[in-house]
């Protein structure tokens, strides 16, 4: 048996009070806006609620995935930061709550819930074995429970390690992560198909799950990066975190910016090139009226801008530029989901007003609040993780 690991010297500092204040304020503003929105225009609010749900899913499920690949890949540079993802992953508990208002308005969002439409449409009735409210509900429950279950196992073990330093816990977590990866791949894919792709029930694309996954990774990683860099610069972590840890973080972010662009371009090119009407209408809807500008700006905000910010070697080590890039990416991911969901609501033009602003405010507030809440009860650094010391001595 390996020796229990000795803890790394770590003193917990209180988070700045402003952080929880900001979180509370965001939630307050957002919540008022969201409630008003539901009273004011339920359909529009439900669509926005769906956007928010998918955004929070990205952060939550994506963070659990980040924890898993850290264990699985044996990465050490990210071990000092892992707790940030573990805290953020806790937002998976919020998902059922956020899904509820959307679920109650399922009928006004999804065309395939309209029985008379489905019966009249040969293609839709062919799909009704999959796209029906009962099976949909079952699937959604399965997704949420799988994410929550694996989140609980992984973080429990990690937390337990803080007190006993047992290396076996790392080993168990590696195994759990290996089992989680295929589950994650399938649940995330079908979540994307169910919540987003089936908004246009005639449209289909085999790459769609991968596309949503690439955005998920980016969102989870960039939210974590903002917190990591901010907290580390203020000295909330332990000593020893160097620019090389930042560099790896930046490089991963950079890699996934490219990966997203690759997947997005592949999907677009194939549909554009083959020019089949049963596929192109989806893109054409996003080229209508004002949507055209949203589509074009996605290319810039989601790919070119973060690419240019992160491409130079020094940028990946620079805390400021890392935060700038992460904020851009986070915004881009929200925009991306908005772009995926909302054209179904505003077929002719794209609607943008206070309702659309209220939802992201609530989303960010909730995620931040969960982070602050988790921070209170746990260490920010996995002090007795066997890989922690190696992570602190990490050099490229």
């Amino acid at each position, binding site marked *: 048996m*390996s020796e229990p690991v000795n803890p790394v010297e770590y003193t917990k500092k209180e988070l700045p009070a402003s952080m929880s204040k900001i979180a509370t304020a965001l939630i307050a503003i957002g919540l008022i806006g969201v409630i008003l929105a539901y009273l004011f225009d339920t359909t529009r609010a439900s669509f926005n609620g769906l956007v928010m749900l998918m955004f929070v899913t990205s952060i939550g499920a994506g963070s659990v995935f980040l924890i898993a690949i850290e264990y699985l890949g044996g990465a050490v540079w990210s071990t000092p930061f892992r707790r940030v993802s573990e805290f953020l992953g806790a937002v998976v508990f919020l998902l059922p709550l956020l899904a509820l208002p959307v679920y109650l308005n399922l009928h006004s969002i999804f065309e395939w819930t309209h029985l008379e439409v489905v019966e009249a449409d040969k*293609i839709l009735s062919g799909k009704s074995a999959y796209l029906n409210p009962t099976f949909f509900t079952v699937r959604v429950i399965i997704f949420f429970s799988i994410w929550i279950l694996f989140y609980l196992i992984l973080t429990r073990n990690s937390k337990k390690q803080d007190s006993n330093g047992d*290396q076996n816990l790392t080993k168990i977590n590696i195994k759990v992560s290996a089992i989680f990866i295929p589950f994650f791949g399938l649940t995330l894919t079908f979540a994307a198909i169910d919540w987003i792709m089936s908004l246009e029930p005639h449209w*289909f694309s*085999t790459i769609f799950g991968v596309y949503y996954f690439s955005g998920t990774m980016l969102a989870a990683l960039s939210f974590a990066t903002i917190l990591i860099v901010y907290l580390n610069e203020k000295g909330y972590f332990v000593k020893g975190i160097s620019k090389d840890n930042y560099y790896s973080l930046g490089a991963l972010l950079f890699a996934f910016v490219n990966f997203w662009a690759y997947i997005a371009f592949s999907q677009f090119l*194939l549909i554009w090139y083959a020019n089949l009407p049963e596929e192109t209408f989806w893109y054409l809807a996003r080229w209508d009226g004002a949507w055209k500008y949203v589509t074009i700006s996605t290319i810039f905000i989601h790919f070119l801008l973060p690419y240019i910010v992160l491409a130079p070697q020094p940028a990946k080590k620079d805390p400021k530029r890392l935060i700038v890039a992460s904020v851009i990416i986070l915004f881009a991911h929200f925009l991306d989901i908005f772009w995926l969901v909302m054209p179904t609501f505003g077929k002719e033009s794209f609607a943008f007003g206070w309702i659309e602003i209220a939802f992201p405010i609530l989303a960010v507030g909730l995620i931040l609040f969960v982070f602050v809440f988790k921070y209170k009860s746990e260490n920010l650094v996995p002090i007795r993780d066997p890989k922690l010391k190696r992570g602190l001595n990490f050099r490229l």
Partner: protein
Amino acid sequence: MSAIDYTQELSVVEGKPPLREIDELIIQPLDTKPDKNFFIALSITGSMLLLGALMLAWSFYKGTGVWGNNNPVAWGFPIVNFVFWVGIGHAGTLISAILFLFRQKWRTGIARFAEGMTIFAVMTAGVFPIIHTGRPWLAGYLLPYPNQHDLWVNFHSPLVWDVFAVSTYFTVSFVFWYVGLIPDFGTLRDRTASKIKKVIYSVFSLGWRHSNRHWQHYEMVYLVLAGFATPLVLSVHTIVSFDFAVSILPGWHTTIFPPYFVAGAVFSGFAMVQNVLIIIRKIFHFEHIITLDTLERMNKIILLTGMMVGYAYAMEFFIAWYSGVQPEQFAFLNRAFGPYMWAYWIMVSCNVIFPQFFWIKKIRRKISVMFIIAVLVNVGMWFERFVITVTSLSRDYLPSSWAYYKPTLVDGGILIGSFGLFFTLLILFTKSLPVISISEVKAVVDGAQPSHGEH
């Protein structure tokens, strides 16, 4: 359950050998006369190559009618083999570039060899689209150059993209490989006693001096090359997948093709690297450099990519049903239960089912079993390309033109010849160049880097 100590980094090279021993171990195959086994192996692969060459000469003399390609199935064996071999090549670049970017030190022992395999595999792959044109000596027409006919190539054609992608891939892989070899040529030059060898090594080493002022730029260039090779390797198989996916043929036109092909390429490439490495480390006694841990990691990647490929199969099937488009649904039912169902189920079992054995740690570390699974994976991946190419073409939109594709003996001979070419080059490589990067391995031996990193 053997306990692993996660506080320590696993050493990449076992047993902390002195640097001079590494030189000797790696260079030994170059200094010794080849033994009998070498010539036996070479004569086997050489005869395979000769068979392929004769079959090709016959094809050129008589025309491509001697192949099995028929009217609906215009892309028969040549394209299947092309995609297969390009895929094999991908593992090399992945190991040398992507794992380099991820700072995976275990790659050092196998990187050079895998890069060599990339180059040979791409060369082998490059043969096929060119012979498929029927008159390969006119292949120059594929390049855009100002000419008397006043014609330009069609830059919208995925086949032209292929020309650019494969030739860029070959060139960049070759440059990457050569840049890695320069310091080793320097070491070889300083060790050798033979005059002729010394001249050769001097020429290829370009007069490398192991200078630290050079190392600095060298490392930068290596990083830049790795940074470019990574998207390049993705783009190559992506473009190969575009050959199929930009069409409107059911079973070809599906958006998941790009990442799915890349995952498949890495999958088959790792299996091939695994096969060859197992033999090489045995013959040349590289057990300390190409460790069992390295092989186990490779198996994990095979398992992972195998699951990605399985995911793509499942997704294709599901979305074909989900799409509600009748030809799509038919194409996939036809694959699984049509006249080519034998090929489909060979593919599924070899690519998705057998790799699942790698969940078990004992099998991951058992050399004989992993060798068999790797062979099966290669068989499966060859059949994957066969299934994609042939089933969709043989039964397209027009039932009146459906036909069953049957390869001829000439097709088989050319396929055997391609293996002959690949392995002949590989065998010659093991005796003429250091198959493990000397300078890189030295850099990852325990104690090779200064102990006090903090300055």
